[in-house]
């Protein structure tokens, strides 16, 4: 009866295999005459990872234990003092809180809107190419340009959003009022990320066989229930991938947007942790403190990613 049960479990791939400590099972063993040749092929990739990830990370970790002279005249070992200073500061905790809120809002809204647009665009038959291009084209805009456009849209004197808010009695003061600025930052960041999610969700939707959708059409009358129980679960691999990408985006890649929108504004504007790392290190010249903060951020992201793989990926079905 169970002709498959004697087979070994399907080898797991990537990180999944690594963190559960299973041995790696190569799909195919290739023999090279020269043992160094594979390494040669791997070199460019390894070099890039080393130069742009491991080396700076090691630098950051070592700097975080020193109090460095801003002009490079030596450094004093201070142990964990930089970490203590960061975590002990009320300002740091406030920014950490805002970062969490910002990441949550940006991720939820950009995933939600991306999915909504994808589902709607998937249904359109006439002129679908036009709609898709229109939705995707925003992704071609560079983050600083998006930030600049956001700044214009929310400008105190010429910004149409400020005028619009005014009609509803909202005296919007982006760059002065903390929450107004936060609102603008979230809006621009979401706007920038929606097309990316849209592309992935749309291709995910098109990967679902037409007959499975039709079977669901016969099995379930209610469109929303049908979407939730049949379609969305088939999109789970895409959604899981996008969740990780979007959290990373909100944490790190929104830097340029924030930089353009709050740089020349008065203090007390909402910023995220990565922006604080930058401003403390390069504006405040506190290299050690900034390095400690970036190490904290790295650890947080590492934990977050592991938790996602451990708890969420189990529920994801790869077709």
């Amino acid at each position: 009866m169970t002709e498959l049960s004697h087979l070994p479990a399907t080898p797991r791939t990537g990180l999944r295999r690594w963190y559960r400590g299973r041995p790696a099972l190569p799909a195919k063993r290739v023999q090279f005459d020269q043992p160094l040749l594979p390494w040669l092929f791997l070199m460019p990739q390894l070099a890039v990872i080393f130069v742009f990830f491991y080396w700076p990370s090691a630098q950051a970790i070592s700097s975080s234990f020193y109090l460095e002279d801003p002009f490079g005249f030596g450094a004093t070992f201070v142990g964990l003092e930089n970490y203590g200073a960061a975590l002990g500061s009320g300002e740091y905790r406030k920014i950490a809180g805002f970062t969490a809120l910002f990441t949550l809002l940006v991720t939820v809204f950009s995933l939600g809107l991306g999915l909504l647009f994808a589902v709607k665009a998937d249904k359109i038959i006439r002129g679908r190419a036009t709609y898709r291009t229109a939705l995707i084209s925003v992704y071609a805009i560079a983050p600083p340009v998006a930030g600049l456009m956001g700044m214009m849209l929310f400008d105190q004197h010429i910004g149409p959003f400020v005028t619009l808010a005014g009609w509803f009695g909202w005296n919007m003061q982006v760059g002065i009022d903390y929450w107004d600025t936060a609102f603008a930052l979230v809006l621009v960041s979401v706007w920038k990320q929606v097309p990316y999610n849209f592309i992935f969700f749309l291709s995910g939707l098109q990967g679902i066989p037409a007959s499975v959708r039709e079977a669901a059409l016969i099995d379930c009358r209610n469109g929303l229930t049908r979407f939730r129980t049949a379609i969305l679960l088939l999109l789970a691999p895409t959604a899981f991938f996008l969740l990780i990408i979007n959290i990373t985006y909100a944490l790190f890649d929104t830097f340029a947007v924030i930089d353009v929108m709050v740089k020349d504004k008065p203090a007390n504007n909402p910023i995220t942790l990565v922006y604080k790392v930058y401003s403390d290190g390069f504006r405040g010249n506190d290299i050690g403190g900034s390095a400690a903060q970036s190490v904290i951020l790295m650890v947080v992201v590492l934990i977050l990613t592991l938790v996602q793989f451990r708890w969420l990926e189990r529920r994801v079905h790869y077709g």
Partner: protein
Amino acid sequence: MASIQITNLSKTYPGASGPSVADINLSIRDGEFIVLVGPSGCGKSTLLRMVAGLEDITGGEIHIGDRLVNRVDPADRDIAMVFQNYALYPHMTVRENMAYGLKNRKTPAAEIEARVAEAARMLELRPYLDRKPRALSGGQRQRVAMGRAVVRQPAAFLFDEPLSNLDAKLRVSMRGEIRRLQKRLGTTSLYVTHDQLEAMTLADRLVVLNGGRIEQIGAPLDIYHRPASTFVASFIGAPAMNLLDAEIAGGTLRLGTVEIARIATAAQGPVSLGIRAEDLSIATQGLPFRLDFIEELGAQRLVHGHVEGQPLTLSLSPDIAISDQMHLAIRPGALHLFDTNTGKRLSLPESERQQIHAPA
């Protein structure tokens, strides 16, 4: 369970020059097994999908039972469909796949449990209930797809080429299983296939479609023995019916220089002469036949050659000796005559035909 009434049904896709399905009139009795058969592009799937509600109806009406369903949602038509590529939900187990449609219809849990168990027993799926579809073989997947239809206890089953993705051996056994299941449940069924053998073996009544129109409706053997047109004659039956260019002149049917039969008719001129491969036999005199090649099928052999410059196939028992030049006789009453231009069957009273060359 219910009858299905299809009246003047037509379908024209937007932007298409002509209709894909036109003037379909079909009355399906309660419990009947109807097979729609035809070459690809003949509109058989479109017709089935219109009954299912997956395709809009351009014109005409479909009644399931007493209800006009033209504008009824597919989920409310009380039908269940089995798809060619199974269309199982990959993220659900076999049990969940079968229960899904019932759960969405607010069927009580105990009832769902009982129906799934019954279907699993009937289809021998019990050992696989907690597996995901990807851990099943093609035949098992198709059984799950059928189980999903069975548990619904619908008014009608719709099958869209359900066996096309299976290998030849499995196809034959699944064919038997579908037939047995349908007989046992007595559910009205509409089955689409391009395989004429599948069509012949499954159907209570066959509907042969060509170019979006019904070419002939009838019991499989009626269609086999009295095809309404050259299209049906060449489509139903393997090997295909031999179709030869012949002529009626002065009450005599001639194939080239050979006289085949005397026919009491006033008709004159060219006709298409149809002869089934098994209605031909070797004789001492008759149609002069030149052998080309032989296909051995084991129980019988297909002998290909020419008569009067026209290709002809006959089916013979393997123990009959064959030579390069032979004479053939036609079984009495086995001549089919078709209009050369329209391809329609010319009906002639049996008694008015007189065979010239009887079998030896």
